[in-house]
């Protein structure tokens, strides 16, 4: 009887010792920057968001910045991506290099794209974020949220955004929105409905870039 108790105690001890914290505490952020049409003028502000992210993210976190163009479901549009090293000094070096790569975004986006494929960008972002295995995944969409697709592009696919937070940043009003604000609110509402139906953990909009800390 005593021996059985001893064995059970030993098993419990072994079991407890194996109980580490399996949940990942790492964060992964994917920033989609709209480079289409007139919104390309907002790229300076996008850089401000990137700087904020570089200053906020910790070693072990992941960050990617990608353009939203006429067709965005491709890795080619990722301007910079990095999973920061566990060593803080090394992570610092990575952040410096990241900033330099993002600086080239403005040059690359000169002229702007004819169409805006936000859905394609989100699909690409979800793919990237799920691969990181991070515990907290966020898609930042720096856009006016006006999607425009050419006739050949098909985006009628089911998005899977389970466990991913979606934050729309700097959603500027279009000239048509000024005429009829319902268009603006309707656009936002439709995106919220769409990402939530795709399983997103949260939908949020931040237009005041002075309070970027609200994105987390």
């Amino acid at each position, binding site marked *: 009887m005593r021996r059985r108790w001893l064995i059970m105690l030993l098993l419990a001890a072994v079991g407890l010792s194996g109980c580490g*914290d399996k949940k990942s505490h790492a964060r992964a952020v994917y920033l989609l920057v709209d480079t289409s049409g007139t919104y390309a003028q907002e790229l300076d502000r996008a850089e401000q968001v990137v*700087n904020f992210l*570089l*200053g906020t993210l*910790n070693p*072990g976190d992941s960050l990617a910045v990608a353009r939203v163009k006429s067709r965005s479901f491709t890795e080619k549009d990722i301007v910079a991506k990095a999973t920061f090293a566990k*060593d803080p000094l090394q992570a*610092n070096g990575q952040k*410096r290099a990241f900033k330099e790569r993002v600086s080239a975004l403005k040059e690359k986006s000169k002229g702007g794209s004819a169409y805006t494929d936000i859905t394609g960008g989100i699909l690409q972002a979800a793919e990237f974020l799920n691969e990181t295995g991070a515990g907290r995944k966020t898609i930042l969409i720096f856009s006016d949220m006006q999607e425009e697709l050419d006739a050949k592009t098909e985006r009628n696919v089911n998005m899977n955004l389970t466990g991913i937070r979606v934050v729309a940043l700097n959603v500027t009003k279009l000239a048509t929105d000024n005429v009829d604000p319902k268009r603006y609110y309707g656009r936002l509402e439709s995106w919220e409905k769409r990402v939530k139906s795709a399983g997103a953990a949260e939908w949020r909009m931040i237009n005041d870039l002075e309070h970027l800390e609200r994105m987390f």
Partner: protein
Amino acid sequence: MSWQIVPGNSSLSMLLLAALALAFLYAARQPLHGVIHSLSRALSDGLRLGARWLARAAVRLKERNTLVLLAHGREEVTQAIEREFQRVTVLVQRDLQGYPALQRRLLDDITRIEEDYRKCGEVPPPPPEWVKAVEAVAQIKHTGDGVAQKLLEVISESLESIYEQVLGEYRRAYEERHRILDSFVPFGRSLNETLLKVDRNIGGLQESAARIDAQMDRYEQIAAGSERVEHSLTASATVQFVISALVLVIAFGGAFVNFWLIARPMSAMVGGGEYIVGDLEASHIAALVIILVEATMGLFLMETLRFTHLFPRIHNLPDRMRRRMLWVAFSILFILAGVEVALAVMRDQIIAADIALKRGLGGGEIVAAVVETAWVNKIPVAGQMILGFILPFALAFIGIPLEYFIYSARTVLGGLLVLVVLSLGFVLRLTGNVTRHLGRALVMAYDAVIFLPLMIERAVLMLRGRPVASVSDAARLAKTPETLL
């Protein structure tokens, strides 16, 4: 279904219902009184029993506390007496061991002084012939004879020269005596110093003996278990508890500072963003472990130095083994202090790199962390390095207040527990009394409600000539026999 007995007449219905209720209550008076009595007695007896048990438990606890307190006090006094005896042993071994030599030296000094003193007493005797001649010349009468005059003058001249010669010898003899007396001085001083030393040693021995006497008196009082010594030990334990708690709080403050000094650079060693349990970062846990290991090594160091007595096994180790353990604990502590110094440098580098990055993100150009050359800029890192090296050793001393805290906490918390148990007992007893009186009050209230049937009963009994029981009789009957407490 309507409650009205007489449909359409609620007043009459209510009256009839009240009458029915009164009749029912009057009929059920005795059993309901019994129920109330039983319930109140059951409750109050239970509570008072609990109070009694708690009071007895408090007494037992207090006795146990006293036993522990006296045992601890006895142990402390025994240690103090042992220490005093050790001091006396050292004193005796160091000083009294040399007493034969000291005595020989004293005797030598005294002998030399005596010899010199004897030499001082030897005065050269006057020449005897010369005295007789002077006596003969003194008998010559002055007659005015020229020969005699001439003879006397010659004698006078001779006497003067002899006198000068004798005086010279006399002076030389005195000079010799003074010289001998001068040579007394160092011997006298040496004698004085030796005697002073002896006096000091004897004085030290007397002080130790007085201290041992005082401790023995205390020991006897503790052994007798006197109330005075119990109070004094309790007061002493309370003071020790407060002081040691204060010192421990300060030490924890130091440990906290130490933790934040090494937690950040630890992420470079164990990796940042790694979590082990909940929201605790691996680097934080690693820093905590280092500090705890330092504290443990400090405890062992204090234990092997015999400053503390938390681990009897270490205390009872053979001296050689104990010394080895001391060096092992000290070496580990020293290495950990060195690691903390390295971490302090690393911390400074990480902070410098962070500042450079954030400056760049804020709009400036990103540059690699510049190593500042001005000595003023090196003060913070030097301060961190010194702190990193000193704090582990400072933490080592935590064992001393910890030991006092543990021993005094037993007394203080034991006393508090007695107080809590007594208070709980008082509350239980009070509740028991209140319950008992509530039962009586309920019985009286019951009778007050059915006062009408009771009055009728009394009138009937009076008419029949039987003794009438007052309303309060029921309450009296309800009184609980004072069987408990």
